């Protein structure tokens, strides 16, 4: 399967398929993931290929889905569950925060929960209310969870494979708006594991730090900045927890300036954390305060207004312009 042009949705589907082939204990379940193949078709064909025992529909209850996954993981399985949209993961919040995140610690490592909670997330698809939330901040703030967000087709495949093999529970945030764009990929290429950020583009003037759906936007902004003569580094976090301080800080120290880009509302968010930890670690390398380009602190807007909420190229370029260049 080397060098094929596929979409992120297909890559995720392939990752599930390969993981289920590789390991009989991998199960996939949730709402509409069986015959329908999921509302985004990420589980397309899995029930047909692996049978109802391996990929199945559940009753409509997210807390039940996550709770059942916990029990399955306690008893030898590697469940992967889908929250149909990440905002519909909130009914499972208690299970995620009080059990998924805490079980290993509670039992001094005796009960491990190797499970993946897949969440189609973020906006840019014209979805009505509750269909475009960015909830990674809640999970990143919860000790015990691993939080991953791919931004490329290749990473989607690799990171989902790694997440399923991971010994601990992973909240896997899938950027919905990237589901359909195709990329040429080689899925057999060795790829780094969870916890490693990657520099997507090198540039000496400033660093853009992004993850998930904001990475392609950051890349586009870097392209535009280059056209105007400013060279930007783009770091793709890949995983929010664990956080790759080394890669991020190295880039920031090299460039002396940084902008964090994320779709979620900024207040008390992953972006706040990035600004805080980068500043704590790189203070004397910084020529200007680290800026944030995030969603406003408002509920995700209705489709007709979402363009105002999403961090776009112009807003990123404005933030870069704002990095007190005259001072340097």
């Amino acid at each position, binding site marked *: 399967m080397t060098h094929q042009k596929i979409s992120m949705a297909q890559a995720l589907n392939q990752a599930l398929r390969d993981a289920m082939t590789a390991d009989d204990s991998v199960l996939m379940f949730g709402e509409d993931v069986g015959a329908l193949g999921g509302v985004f078709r990420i589980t397309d064909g899995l029930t047909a290929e692996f049978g109802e025992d391996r990929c199945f*529909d*559940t*009753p409509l*209850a997210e*807390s039940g889905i996550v709770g059942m996954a916990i029990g399955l993981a306690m008893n030898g399985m590697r469940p992967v569950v889908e929250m149909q949209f990440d905002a519909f993961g909130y009914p499972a919040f208690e299970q995620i925060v009080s059990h998924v995140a805490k079980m290993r610690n509670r039992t001094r490592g005796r009960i491990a929960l190797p499970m993946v909670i897949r969440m189609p997330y973020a906006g840019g698809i014209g979805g009505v*209310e509750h269909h475009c939330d960015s909830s990674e901040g809640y999970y990143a703030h919860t000790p015990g969870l691993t939080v991953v967000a791919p931004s490329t087709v290749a990473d989607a495949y690799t990171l989902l494979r790694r997440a399923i093999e991971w010994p601990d529970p992973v909240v896997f945030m899938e950027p919905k708006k990237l589901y359909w764009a195709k990329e040429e990929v080689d899925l057999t290429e060795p790829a780094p594991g969870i916890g490693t950020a990657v520099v997507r583009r090198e540039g000496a003037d400033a660093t853009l730090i992004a993850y998930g759906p904001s990475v392609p936007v950051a890349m586009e902004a870097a392209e535009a900045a280059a056209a105007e003569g400013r060279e930007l580094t783009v770091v793709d976090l890949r995983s929010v927890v664990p956080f790759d301080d080394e890669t991020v800080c190295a880039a920031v120290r090299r460039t002396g300036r940084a902008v964090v880009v994320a779709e979620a509302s900024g*207040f008390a968010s992953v972006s706040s954390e990035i600004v805080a930890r980068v500043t704590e670690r790189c203070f004397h390398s910084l020529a200007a305060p680290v800026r944030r380009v995030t969603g*406003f602190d408002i509920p995700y807007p209705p489709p007709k207004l979402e363009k105002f909420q999403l961090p776009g190229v*112009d807003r990123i370029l404005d933030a870069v312009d704002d990095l007190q260049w005259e001072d340097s």
Partner: protein
Amino acid sequence: MTTVEEQLLPSKEPVRLIDQDGVLHDHSSYQLPTQQALVDGYVELIKGRRINDQASALVRQGRLAVYPSSHGQEACQVAASMVLADGDWLFPTYRDTVTIVSRGVDPIETLTLLRGDWHSGYDPYARNVAPQSTPLATQLTHAVGVAHAARLKGEDTVVMALCGDGATSEGDFHEALNFAAVFKAPVVFFVQNNGFAISVPLSKQTVAPSIAHKGIGYGVPGERADGNDLAGLLAVLGQAVDKARAGEGPQLVEAHTYRVQAHTNADDATRYRQDDEVTPWLAKDPIKRLEAYLSSAGLLSDDIKRRAEDAATRVAQQLRDGLMPEPSVDPEELFTHLYAVPTPQLAEQAAFLRDELAREEA
């Protein structure tokens, strides 16, 4: 079997007063609604069907973002509104456009959510209709709160709370029924069991004898009705509303109906069900059977037919006109409705956007 169980368990068969051939059936506990009610209901059914079909057409034209149609469920939609008094409350879901319009809310305002202009478009207090709920079953506990407030204020309000078969699996369904029962809140929980939650058939949702059987676990009387028989629904829901109003506490009603079309236009039902499963349900269409009955009873005058057709034409026109121009939503609104007074943070962000837009325009 004690009296308690007899009181709380549903009828052995779903209540049906008019069968699919339009033939009348007597029932020991329920009476045929008045001729007037049936005729008015018929007009509403025709109008409701037209709303569904017109809205679906508008989705295909890109004038609505999405439309979860209640095509085939119009008897439930119409009955849920008809049994309510003016001061009562309705708690609808995303699929209940027809009920909302039937209750007198402007259809364009109703479709604001699905058009993508704003999350909810009508004034909930104008006709006592809560915003349509998307997160399943979550609105049911709100309904209990509204009903309890009414009782505390000494008002005889009844609250009609709608949900689907899939939604009954959510924890909030359970909590709402239990709270309502414990507080004797005048809520009629009306479950439109249309056989599917997107692709998931009822058999994977529950193995209970029926959804109406869930009532007894809360001490709530459960009843079930043929969901395509407007007459039966009016009788059953009407009685439930009366009992709730009379202080007998919450009532659970399950309507057996069928989602004839896909979940929404975005859904592809061929992936999970065969056409021959749908066909028998077409014969059970709620409009056909009421029409058959009204005809045979000599109640379907040309005048009535014209009234129905006029109402349908009018609402379809309203939809086509109202959903025509690109509506303008002021981006400033993104910041103004979160709090009575915006936080300094929001004010700052609003200024940022205003500034950005001004620069773009310049």
